[in-house]
């Protein structure tokens, strides 16, 4: 999973070097971050299944305009659905309302089922939109974008450090794990396994902190004064404005219709 944060990722803001970005990927990252946030907030506030489905459709259209691999994205969505499936299955049985079917003496109510479907659609819509708007960015580009959106610089620097060292420490973890394997370690359900994992993680913490000390010294040698120069070429162009207005109109219409229009059935 940490391939996203691998060593070979470009450390500059423009992703993929000479590659031409996809239709969605060509928009200003700031617009994409803000759009994803606004979309999430609006979708969470939707009350009717029909409009939540429309939001999911909007996310799917956006997805089709990116160059993300379809299978990977769907897999991630399925992983997210795995988290909530238990809750969704339980909801119909725990919400009071019109009884629909009875399974093993438990009554499933229609209201509960509708609520579960609504929650599921909203969750999928938000995640799909977020993945299609943001996951094409490199983590470094995300850091620059947040910096340009006036996030606290300390937080952005912290994030950039984290991004930089995830792959390094993941490799370190694999090295330690390989050493354990060579000594015949196999993960089982016993105290020895948990103790070994504890030692493994403790060692990882110790090593990472020693690495951090070396990093700080090296940075001070190079004149680190508490501020990283953030050099990027983000520009808010005409098409970003068009996208922003179009997106805003679409989701405002969605939320207004959700509150006013009632389907007759």
């Amino acid at each position, binding site marked *: 999973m940490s391939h996203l944060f691998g060593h070979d990722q470009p450390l500059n803001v423009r992703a993929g070097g000479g590659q031409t970005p996809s239709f969605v990927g060509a928009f200003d990252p700031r617009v994409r971050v803000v759009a994803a946030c606004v979309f999430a907030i609006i979708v969470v506030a939707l009350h009717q299944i029909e409009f939540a489905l429309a939001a999911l459709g909007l996310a799917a259209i956006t997805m089709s305009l990116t160059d993300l691999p379809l299978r990977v994205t769907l897999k991630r969505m399925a992983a997210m659905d795995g988290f909530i499936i238990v809750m969704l299955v339980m909801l119909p049985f725990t919400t009071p309302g019109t009884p629909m079917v009875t399974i093993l003496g438990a009554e499933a109510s229609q209201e509960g089922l509708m609520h579960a479907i609504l929650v599921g659609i909203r969750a999928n819509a938000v995640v799909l939109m977020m993945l299609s708007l943001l996951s094409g960015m490199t983590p470094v580009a995300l850091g620059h974008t947040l910096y340009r959106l006036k996030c606290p610089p300390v937080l952005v620097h912290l994030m950039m450090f984290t991004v930089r060292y995830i792959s390094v420490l993941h490799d370190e973890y694999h090295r330690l794990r390989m050493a354990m394997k060579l000594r015949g370690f196999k993960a089982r359900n016993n105290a020895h396994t948990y103790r070994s994992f504890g030692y493994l993680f403790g060692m990882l913490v*110790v090593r990472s902190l020693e690495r951090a000390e070396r990093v700080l010294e090296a940075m001070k040698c190079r004149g680190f004064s508490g501020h990283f120069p953030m050099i990027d070429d983000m520009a808010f162009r005409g098409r970003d404005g068009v996208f922003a207005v179009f997106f805003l109109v679409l989701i405002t219409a969605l939320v207004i219709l959700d509150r006013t229009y009632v389907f007759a059935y």
Partner: protein
Amino acid sequence: MHIVDGALAPEVLIGGGVLAVAGLGLGLRKLPIDKIPATGVLSATFFVASLIHVPVGPSSVHLIMSGLAGLVLGWTAFPALFVGLLLQAIFFGFGGLTVLGVNTVNIAFPAVLAGLLFRGMVSRSNPVTAAVLGGCAGAFSIALTTVFVAISLALSGDGFVPAAKLVFFAHIPIMVVEGLVSAAAVYLIAKVKPSLLQPADSISDFQMQAAALRAKQAGEASNG
């Protein structure tokens, strides 16, 4: 442990967001510019912890290690864990954007609390006692996290109450495993690098003493 977008009531989302911003503000104020590399590297370490799968019964769970994060980082565990959750949400789709505040509070606040409760005792005791206390801190922070998750679900609607109870009971084995793994990790750290578990000011005391000692020795060397 992650709650997804769309499940919680707006009031809970807003409340979580406000608390998360407050915690982030406090954590960032305790984060001097010199500490950013160490905190960032540790934040990456705790991100890697979430990629480590440990067998529990027939299945496996990933480590969270928030108790240890609180012990090592104190209040700065809040921004450190927030960064990890943000990256997971955006690049892996775990959790969501609107619940980011709630998720951060649910995971980082118990970590900070575990740190505040156990750090003083851990730093004063020998490795074995430190390991026991560290294990308690690890289990405690996971227990509190599940309670927080249950509360945020229960506040969002009565229909979620059974799910909230289920979340709590399903996490009891995870609490035990986290406790055991944290205990072993603290034992190792207490043996190998005890300064990691000392409060920040006593470290600087130690460093100043060491510097003074070195200066003295340097002076003596030139005399001799």
